[in-house]
């Protein structure tokens, strides 16, 4: 808890330049990830009516359940932003608290998603049931895998934050983590809209 460790991050100019490049590099990765999701969205849109006699999208989802999931992830995207504000004003304890809340919201979201997957599989609607379920599990599961990676990353960063404090390296990594987390929330908006809402509307 020394003064040095809590000192404002990123003072040297070379660090600023590296930071800027890293930010852009990570942003570019996120954009390529967006293209990956686009391919999965297109696959889902094409295959969603191929239920092979099974139930359609409008019949298998519980809408209040999905709305709760969405609110959890949306709130976690907000709290990760508040955590970064605390980091920038060098408030370590506050930042840590917001990150823990973000982690719990994210874990809650992932838990609900796994519960839904398990429920569908038990009803005989696993990924191999028909083309609709295959594309559904691939799209939503890929998003869930990203969330799981984000949660692991968050655990690692919490340990680093406790050990080293708000250093230049930690600030940079946490900025990228928050960027990743906001990105996953944006992808979820489209899953919520195109998979669940349009499924319920039976368009």
């Amino acid at each position, binding site marked *: 808890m020394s003064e040095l460790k809590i000192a*404002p991050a*990123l*003072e*040297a*100019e070379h660090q*600023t330049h590296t*930071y*800027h490049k890293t*930010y*852009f590099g990570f*942003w*570019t990765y996120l*954009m*390529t990830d*967006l*293209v990956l*999701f*686009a*391919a999965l*969205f*297109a*696959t889902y*849109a*094409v295959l969603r009516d191929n239920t092979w006699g099974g139930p359609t999208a409008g019949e298998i989802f519980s*809408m209040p359940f999905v*709305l709760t999931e*969405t*609110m959890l992830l*949306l*709130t976690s*995207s*907000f709290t990760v*932003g*508040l955590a*970064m*504000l605390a980091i*920038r004003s060098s408030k370590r304890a506050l930042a840590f608290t917001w990150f823990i809340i973000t982690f719990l919201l994210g874990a809650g979201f992932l838990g609900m998603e796994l519960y839904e997957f398990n429920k569908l599989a038990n009803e005989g609607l696993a990924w191999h049931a028909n083309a609709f379920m295959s594309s559904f599990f691939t799209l939503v599961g890929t998003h869930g895998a990203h969330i799981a990676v984000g949660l692991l990353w968050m655990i690692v960063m919490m340990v680093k934050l406790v050990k080293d404090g708000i250093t230049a390296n930690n600030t940079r990594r946490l*900025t990228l983590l928050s*960027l990743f987390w*906001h990105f996953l*929330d*944006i992808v979820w*908006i*489209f899953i*919520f*809209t*195109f998979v669940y*809402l*349009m499924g*319920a*509307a039976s*368009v």
Partner: protein
Amino acid sequence: MSKSHTSAEHEHQVTHGSYVSYITGFVLSIVLTLVAYFSVVNDWLIGWSVLLFVTALAIMQLLVQLLFFLHLSQEKRPRFNLMTFGYAAMVVVIIVIGSLWIMYNMRYNMVHEMTPEELERTIIEDEGIKYLENDQTGKHSH
């Protein structure tokens, strides 16, 4: 190269928000999500207008989060982040719209769902070759 403005310079290079921007973004996102949700659950609209309405709300929420959570509008020139986003968005639209367009037209090839008579009738009706055939019957003998 130690300059007093280095810290201020950094503030401008990597964009970040304030409590006001995060709270604004959060409230707008919740409102947009709830409007989309209840429009579907309570059947405010029917048919294809539902698709257009919820898609418009999703795009509005995308813009809200890009502005208030990712602070894309605060980026200094040259706006490389915005450019890569624009390019990615273009690729996304081409992949999604393009796939749907192609697969919609490929339904002729879904012969397993139609009897040969149904398939022939569909092709004749959609391509308008019925009239051509009638006009040309027997007129091409040499």
